[in-house]
């Protein structure tokens, strides 16, 4: 399999605290890759380094064979990595449709002048963006709320909308930060289906998740972080039986069954 993302010895410190220490992991094209670990293990920090929100103190991230710019989120998106947030961050006062349309920003090119003059090209692009946005809403299953202001959507639908918006940037790697947080069982099941569809359609998925059941069922491979270090990386069945993982989660007295 082809390597999509290669993180090499990524280190990030906040003052005296080392949030990530020498983390190396490889994500292959087309897989669902899980990143788990107890609270404060550095999962979100890794996410923020990956997506350009933080500048790492050491190491590098190679995406599709080229090094990712650090600290420049918009360039990371242009390179093909899209993300969602742990605490949903939608454009609250825009409709669901407009949120997704905003996501198309980086893949559209109408400039202010062509917009002011409403050139044929600009008009055509606008129509295309609208159409694609509708398609994406349908894809995540909330097309009927296209015209609803996003802050009025239900929690689960907001999560879906955020995923649609991320997909609008046409990513090769979709990074989801705890997408199932706060969801009920039905919503989680539907989310699992959605992630599988996304993977099936050729987008690699990086998943940070607390819901161990979801991670184990969904991921092809996963890495476990603990205190900023990677303590395991393998297929779920193997990771599940890893002693270091069990003790990280359960303080060293658990069984594999409890971790799952």
């Amino acid at each position, binding site marked *: 399999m082809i390597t999509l993302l290669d993180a090499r010895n990524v280190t990030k410190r906040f003052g005296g605290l080392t949030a990530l220490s020498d983390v190396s992991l490889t994500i292959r094209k087309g897989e669902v890759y899980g990143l788990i670990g107890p609270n404060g293990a550095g999962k979100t920090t890794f996410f923020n380094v990956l997506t350009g929100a933080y500048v790492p103190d050491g190491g590098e991230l190679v995406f599709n064979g080229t090094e990712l710019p650090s600290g420049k989120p918009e360039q990371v998106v242009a390179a093909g990595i899209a993300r969602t947030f742990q605490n949903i961050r939608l454009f609250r006062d825009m409709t669901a449709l407009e949120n997704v349309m*905003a996501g198309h920003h980086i893949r559209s090119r109408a400039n202010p002048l062509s917009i002011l003059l409403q050139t044929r090209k600009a008009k055509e692009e*606008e129509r295309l963006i609208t159409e694609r946005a*509708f398609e994406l809403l349908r894809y995540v299953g909330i097309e009927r709320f296209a015209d609803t202001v996003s802050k009025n959507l239900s929690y689960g639908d907001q999560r879906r909308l955020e995923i649609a918006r991320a997909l609008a940037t046409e990513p090769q790697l979709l990074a989801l930060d705890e997408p199932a947080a706060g969801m009920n069982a039905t919503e989680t099941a539907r989310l699992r289906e959605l992630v599988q569809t996304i993977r099936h359609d050729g987008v690699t998925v990086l998943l940070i998740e607390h819901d161990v059941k979801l991670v184990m069922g969904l991921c092809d491979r996963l890495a476990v972080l603990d205190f900023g270090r990677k303590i395991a990386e393998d297929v779920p069945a193997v990771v599940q039986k890893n002693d270091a993982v069990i003790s990280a989660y359960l303080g060293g007295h658990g069984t594999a069954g409890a971790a799952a």
Partner: protein
Amino acid sequence: MNELALAIPWLGKRHPAAARWVVVAIALGAPLIAILFGKTWVRILDFAMLYVMLAIGLNLVVGFAGLLDLGYIAFYAVGAYTFAFLASPHFDIHLPFWIVLPMGAGFAALAGIILGLPTLRLRGDYLAIVTLGFGEIVRIFLNNLNHPINITNGPQGINMIDPLVLFGWDISRPVKIGEDITINSLFLYYYVFLAFVVLSIILVQRLQISRVGRAWAAIRDDELAAKAIGINTRNMKLLAFSLGATFGGVAGGLFAAFQGFVSPESFSLMESIAVLTMIVFGGMGNLAGVIVGALALTALPEVLRHVAVPVQQAVFDRVILDPEVLRMLLLSLAMILMMLLRPSGMIPAYSRYSRPELVVGKAAGEARK
């Protein structure tokens, strides 16, 4: 053009077409009604049009992009002084308006970028303070640049500015039709300004419903998320500042030509705040609201000025409260009531950054409230 209809919400929702025609009729007929009450009122209408342009421009910065600008009047000043420099006896330069007006707009846009660059990282209160300072700096420069070299003529200002001359036709002179009908230049200015307002509305609306408008709204709603979907927030903010300033610059140029006189005192902090108040009053982020707000807050004080004195004299036999005092008093009262009763303005903004009806078979646009 739905916004046009929504300027009269109660009619606009039920009969948009009818509301649209009412708005057009009011816009075209306003000076004819105003003249019944005297020429002053036509003059007030002319000024109202300038304020509408300012409000439209400021709304682009504050309402769409969410960048609180308390020094917006500085761009008005830049436009006005550019016109004054290049079309008056002050430097003895008399360029035609179709050169001067775009130049004023250009300089204002440049000033917008100059203000935008150092303030890119600021938000909310901090941005407000810096822009407030910027507005004052511009005014103080205008006030003091008469020494050692006289550039702005200081507090005396610049007068005898050339009027608007459209294709060889000086619109500051009354037009005579036949023997006894003369059309006052105030009317002509009104329709010229109205044309500029209509053009501004069209341009701003095109920007709003585009990737640029959506990028602004995204930055306003959540800057971090905007970055996370690849929006270059730096460029988009600079674009908002400069385009917003352009409208101010054009309005300033028209103001200079209309007044024939500019001085620094026309560009005080109170003016910036007045324009911001119009936006908040009318409904921030909503074009129709902003226009109604600008019209209402330009007209109300004038109505008051003309009504308050006679009423007080009739009731108390003397003037107890000076109209100017009363104006600020009632304006504050109106603002407080507004914040309590309709915190999002007379015509609240509703999301309008897309046209779902572009896609065949989507009735979503009709369901909008």
